[in-house]
């Protein structure tokens, strides 16, 4: 099983990276950009085959390590690996 985790800054939390990218894109001549936010994307391969258990486990990983709930939100998607 593969878990795909997105960790993003909570709305309202300053995102200096996103701001800088936005700036740079408009310097490059791209127009009509309303805003850019940057987050992390983490892919985890798991031996667990039970989806509910896997989800609970990844949820726990997010809480314990992958995100800091002070400033970040996370979301989890599960995906069966081909051939597993």
């Amino acid at each position: 099983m593969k878990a795909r985790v997105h960790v993003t800054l909570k709305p309202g939390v300053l995102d200096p990276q996103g701001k800088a990218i936005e700036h740079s894109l408009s310097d490059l001549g791209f127009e009509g950009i309303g805003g850019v936010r940057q987050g992390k994307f983490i892919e985890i391969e798991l031996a667990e085959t039970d989806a509910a258990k896997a989800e609970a486990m990844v949820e726990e990983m997010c809480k314990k390590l992958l995100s800091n709930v002070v400033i970040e939100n996370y979301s989890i998607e599960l995906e069966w690996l081909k051939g597993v």
Partner: protein
Amino acid sequence: MIMDGVTQIPDKTAKNEITPEMVAEHGLTTEEYERIVAALGRAPNITELGIYSVMWSEHCSYKSSKVHLKTLPTEAPWVICGPGENAGIIDIGDNQAIIFKMESHNHPSYIEPYQGAATGVGGILRDVFTMGARPIANMNALRFGAPDHPKTKHLVSGVVAGIGGYGNCVGVPTVGGETSFDASYNGNILVNAMTVGLADKDNIFYSAAAGIGNPVIYVGSKTGRDGIHGATMASAEFTEDSEAKRPTVQVGDPFTEKLLIEACLELMASDAIIAIQDMGAAGLTSSSVEMASKGGVGFDLDLDKVPQREEGMTPYEMCLSESQERMLMVLKPGREDFAKGIFEKWGLDFAIIGKITDTGRLTITWRGEIAGDMPIASLVDDAPVYERPFVAGVKQALLKAGDIPAPDDYGDALMKLIGGANLSSRRWVWEQYDHMVMADTVARPGGDAAVVRIHGSEKGLAMSTDCTPRYCLADAHEGGKQAVAETWRNITAVGAKPLAITDCLNFGNPEKPEIMGQFAEAVAGMGEACRALDYPVVSGNVSLYNETNGTAILPTPAIGGVGVMASIRRMATVPFKRYGDVIILIGESKGHLGASIYLQEVLGRKTPEELGAPPPVDLAAERRNGDFVRPLIEEGLVDTCHDLSDGGLIVALAEMAMASKAGGIGAEIDAGFISPSLAVPLHGILFGEDQGRYLIAVTEEIAADILRRAEAENVPAVQIGATGGDALVIRHEGTEAVKLSVSDMTSAHESWLPTYMSG
């Protein structure tokens, strides 16, 4: 009021009544609320309540500490500006001034270690460059919980990365600090950051607003809902559910800070600025109130002009936001366009948000309506001042070395200390800091004081941060003295003249008389040392309520000292440099083991009673010994010097050997030289933490000369051995009490922290 990550704050237009709950949530007592009503002649609205609450918070008003802080000496002929401005200023000659300050960011760093520490660095940098200085060095003093506490490793890693992440990006070298571990910080770490800047003495900027009608300008980042109520958070005790107050943590943007530094310094090179002030804790509110109060004027602010990052912000939110990387200025009329050009060049926001009035009031408009109107004087001068009751701490008994057991093996005891949590090398920490950027760092981290060259000259600036909290717990008065004396000694040990200090006073809940007692005694002790050493306090910061669920941290008055040397070519450093140098111990060794790291880490003593009284600081001897050592370095006689602190003589010797290059230069010492007549047992001589002592290593001819001078000047100095070989050997009554190879010591010393952090 803060739920589920979203700050939900009632809009003032809802005209909701101020309830007792709201007053309490703002950390105000009923009595304080009554004062507000009296000052306004009516009930405040929610925005005004918020503004009063931050202005009267412990963090902004110093209501518990003021009466004690007033007793500190703040003057000397070289002091240009003492406490009260953004940072303290001293004169170092040649039309140069040093501007410096230390500040805490304890609570945010516990909640979000990386961002908390990073924004702490950002905040203290702004305090310094707002006065016209280019920041030239950063320092930090860090206290973490017990190494085996489940949170400690994560906090160390985040805090160190955060300090580096910010300081490295803005390009200011982080050159020194201190790092220690103690279980009392398990739920409340300390992150104290210090910035030192260099300015032209005739081009210093202050915050007093002046000139009725002059424009008030906002520059830097946009305002968002960041850290609303950070100041009140820093003024409240920690409980488990404080972790739910999370959105009060801000994210730092060092890139913007770097631009802000450059833009401000560029504008400061012109004559356009009348007054300038960073937006620190309590943001727009406290900066405008302070500027207006200092200048004796009023401010009209139009919140609609404030650059905003988010939509739908209320006046309450805009006034209390602690968004980072922002400054407020008053410009000379007509210079707005010139200034705007500079900030636009650096890609920063620039907005005229108000003007100076003669009303003496802070008047805030929002969407055409008055959103707040308060007398400035009441926000500042009516802030409560408390003479909180306090009780003197229990003085622990003096312990006699003869009553304290010797270690089973002296070498093992030494290895345990230098290879343990508190005395092992901090290289893992400082290698994450760019300590060389600006290409003027001449004494890198790892020595007694860090030294940076004053750019373009031969002058050197020495800095050290110190505090020994276990001494402060045993006797806050002696501990306060000792912290000041130790910075003075560290600065002296490199050959610089100590000039002034800043402080960061970290204590528990001041409403408890025993904590207030620690505070009062520590401040009294600091004051005594400052007076005796001609070493005034020019800036500082108080952090109270450092408690978790009712348990306080060790009293931790961290001191940051600054000194100057005429030439960096004549500077002393810790490492042994030559074989066959004579080693001389300066200062008296009485074998004082009370509150020593030996008792704590080798004998495992824990309670204050078991640990006993800390070493007394004889300030006259401290000054005499330091004033003896410094000229030896200045005259070029001594290039190798180290002061004695934690772990006493044996640890200092080991550090000098370990710091020497290429496999290490060892030393042979005969303990018999140290106090042949005194009945001090060997472990007292080796591990005793008597104050006011230095080790120097010099060639034989110079040694003879120095010993003669010491005798003439009545300074205790004794030749205790010589450098040589590749081991530290200590003889005592014909036996080898210690024999450890420098490389074995080095590997123990260097490996503890990296091993701990990677485990």
